[in-house]
């Protein structure tokens, strides 16, 4: 377990997440891709903190901020899904061609 291997695992998670976020048609699956990318980001932050920051607590703080971003993304994302579904009965990205209602 070295910094390089940890970061490569994080890169793999980010790559898979990017694939999912770009390829999925369903809003919720798209959000899962975003979550997976943030998962990789947390792993990279913790890896850097553990291997090359000498235990400075700011590294852990950054990981907590990433977790807060994750929570915000989930909450606002689901609220938008609910709002769009109520307005258009749509749960696929293709059914939204304009932002007006």
């Amino acid at each position, binding site marked *: *377990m070295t*910094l390089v*291997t*940890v*970061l*490569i*695992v994080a*890169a*793999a*998670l*980010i*790559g*898979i*997440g990017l*694939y*999912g976020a*770009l*390829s*999925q*048609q*369903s809003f919720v*699956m798209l959000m*899962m*891709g975003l*979550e*997976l990318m943030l*998962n990789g980001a*947390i*792993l990279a932050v*913790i*890896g850097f*903190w*553990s*291997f*090359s920051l*000498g*235990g400075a*607590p*700011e590294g*852990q*703080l950054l*990981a*907590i*901020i990433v*977790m*807060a971003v*994750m*929570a*915000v993304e*989930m*909450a606002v994302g*689901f*609220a938008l*899904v*609910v709002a769009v*579904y*109520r307005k258009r009965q749509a749960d*696929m990205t*293709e059914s939204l061609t304009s932002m007006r*209602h």
Partner: protein
Amino acid sequence: MTDALFLALSTLAIWSGWRVFRVDSMVRASFQLMVSFIAVGLIAVLLAAPYIGIATIFMMAVEMMVMALFMVMFMMNPAGLNPMVMVHQHRFSIAAGVVAFSGLSAAVLLSDLPVQRVPEGADVVRDLGHELLGPSMLIFETAGVTLLATMIGAVVLSAHSGRYGASDAGSLPPGLTPGGEPAGRKPDESAGHHHHHGGH
């Protein structure tokens, strides 16, 4: 021992992350994502960050349960009885994922990364607590206020009704007398047409 554990956990994290987009049922997909998060949380514990690791596991377990509920509420085929492929721009997405992975890996392999490990026996959770409620308190509190704003925004976006009727029908207050003019300031008529909030 640590290396073997890391290998197993990282394989699990990547494999279940990949399975998220390959299973037929969206509920199963959210559980696969939860497995991936739990594996990353355990790797964080291996990396001497027990607080972050355990917090990730707890948070993601709850979050993925909520996600599974949403899957059942909104999505077709939640039980995975039929094959499910709902993708667009598939080749482009695969290419983008591969490019992201190989680019990041190349950057990792080619750069000279600094090495300064966490000292043996360092009290990392205690340090984090002192940091959160000491020098970085403003950042921590800002995250808290951001979460509050998120809660308000989520309620506003998903609420069925506003203060004066349906949330998507505008918010004109009722008249002061029965059938009278709406109370309060009226929206600007010339600019109002474009943003007309008439219900469908």
